[in-house]
């Protein structure tokens, strides 16, 4: 834990974020499966649960790397090699780009948070080529990134930046319900995809909320 400081986050936060993500994804496994069952192939919750379980196992197995970026990279590689499907490469790329954005940074302030979220989102878009409104996880990430940027510019604390991102992500996820999917498996359904939440957008909201909770626990 960072001694008495709420203005910067450290490697411990990254580790706590990943552990909290694993916990919430495991808890919401069936919910995410059911969302994917409606407009996809009923595996999103299973995939993420398998992936984050592998990440936690990596964290538990001996010493994890020292810097936030290195831990994120380890998580990225683990997700990439254990999630599979569309979500694996997308979340993997997101964390990899986030790691790259941090470089060797040891202390993460509000601007770094906004920066790593932006890098993550850009990675998802680079990989998946989805635009806003395509009913994908991008519809959670883009509002999150925008909210985080605005908050950071307004001088918010890291916790506030993260909270702004998570709230916007969850709102973005909720807003996917009426959309007709234009990317990913749900796009095969055409108009029948409307009326359902996008599973990846929902899981993105959960994972960003995990970042908030991990930061809160650090205080």
């Amino acid at each position: 834990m960072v001694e008495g400081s709420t203005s910067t986050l450290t490697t411990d936060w990254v580790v706590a974020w990943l552990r909290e993500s694993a916990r919430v994804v495991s808890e919401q496994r069936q919910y995410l499966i059911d969302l994917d069952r409606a407009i996809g192939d009923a595996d999103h919750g299973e995939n993420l649960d398998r992936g984050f379980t592998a990440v936690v196992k990596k964290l538990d197995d001996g010493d994890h790397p020292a810097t936030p970026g290195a831990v994120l990279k380890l998580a990225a590689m683990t997700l990439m090699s254990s999630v599979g499907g569309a979500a694996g490469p997308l979340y993997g790329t997101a964390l990899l780009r986030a790691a790259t954005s941090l470089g060797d940074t040891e202390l993460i302030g509000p601007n770094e948070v906004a920066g790593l979220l932006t890098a993550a989102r850009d990675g998802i878009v680079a990989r998946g080529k989805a635009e806003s409104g395509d009913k994908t996880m991008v519809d959670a990430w883009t509002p999150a990134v925008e909210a985080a940027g605005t908050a950071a510019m307004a001088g918010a604390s890291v916790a506030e930046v993260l909270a702004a991102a998570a709230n916007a992500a969850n709102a973005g996820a909720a807003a996917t319900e009426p959309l007709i999917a234009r990317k990913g498996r749900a796009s095969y359904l055409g108009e029948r995809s409307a009326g359902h939440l996008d599973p990846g957008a929902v899981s993105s909201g959960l994972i960003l909320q995990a970042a908030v909770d991990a930061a809160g626990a650090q205080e």
Partner: protein
Amino acid sequence: MKKLINDPKQVVTESVEGFGAAHADLVSVHPEPLFITRKDAPRQGKVGLVSGGGSGHEPLHAGYVGRGMLDAAVPGAMFTSPTPDQILPATTAVDGGAGVLHIVKNYTGDVLNFETAAELAEAEGVTVRTVLVNDDVAVEDSLYTAGRRGVGGTVLVERIAGGAAERGDSLDAVTAIAQRVIDNVRSMGVALAACTVPHAGQPSFDLTDDEIEIGIGIHGEPGRHRIAMENADGITGRLMEPILADLKVDSGEKVLLFVNGMGGTPASELYIVYRRARQLLEEQGIVVERSLVGNYITALEMQGASITVLRLDDEMVELWDSPVHTAALHWGV
């Protein structure tokens, strides 16, 4: 949900282990990360063919590993594309110096994971080409979608490209013929009842006793339309119409007609569909030159079928007929 399984998380591992033991004359199973190669891989100087995807479509892909077809298959979790750390060693394991062709069904997950693996393999000095199978006419092919899915046509691509690789064609030539098959093949499917993914525990969609899903894929996804149950001839007509409209086969042209079972439909019913599909082709003067009927690309125990039509040229026929020795397709000297 009743299934002949143990731990739902071990379904793929245990099943592939059984597969490897049953077909030890044809394949080797590499357990971690999981992939399957031809027993005699790598074949020096031969283009390596690698395919893979989510499990639950058996015999695709492991059942097509062997002489005249795939050099390696990479099974993901149930209905989940495999990961680059599986695809990469499968790719390097079957590289005989002539390069490797990745045959990828057009799903976002498969595309992204194979893409990453291909980059990594190239970095290790293996030349990799990729073809995307996207034969499902149920899905509109547009810039604003993920494009058409790869379904039944995949089996035909693997067989014909596999024949070309076996006779010693170059990577460019094998890629070209694979692409030619893709350009000339179209499919469409129907489900009478959904399947249940072991980890999900409940059917992928619910149909009443008088409804069917038209335009389904192979992952238990709902289809494009839900309609009232019809008889086999009626349903066959509904599948053939968009296939023929899209493929535009002319009278006198030769085709391969492939009626595929989704896993839970008796062979007798597949032949009833085949009978009608063939009648529809022959009524238009189209020549059914080759046929394939059976469970070749499935969605677990889904009840339903898909029809695939491939416009043939003489070279495709020759390659189709060339020897193939795999667990699921086997003929020729």
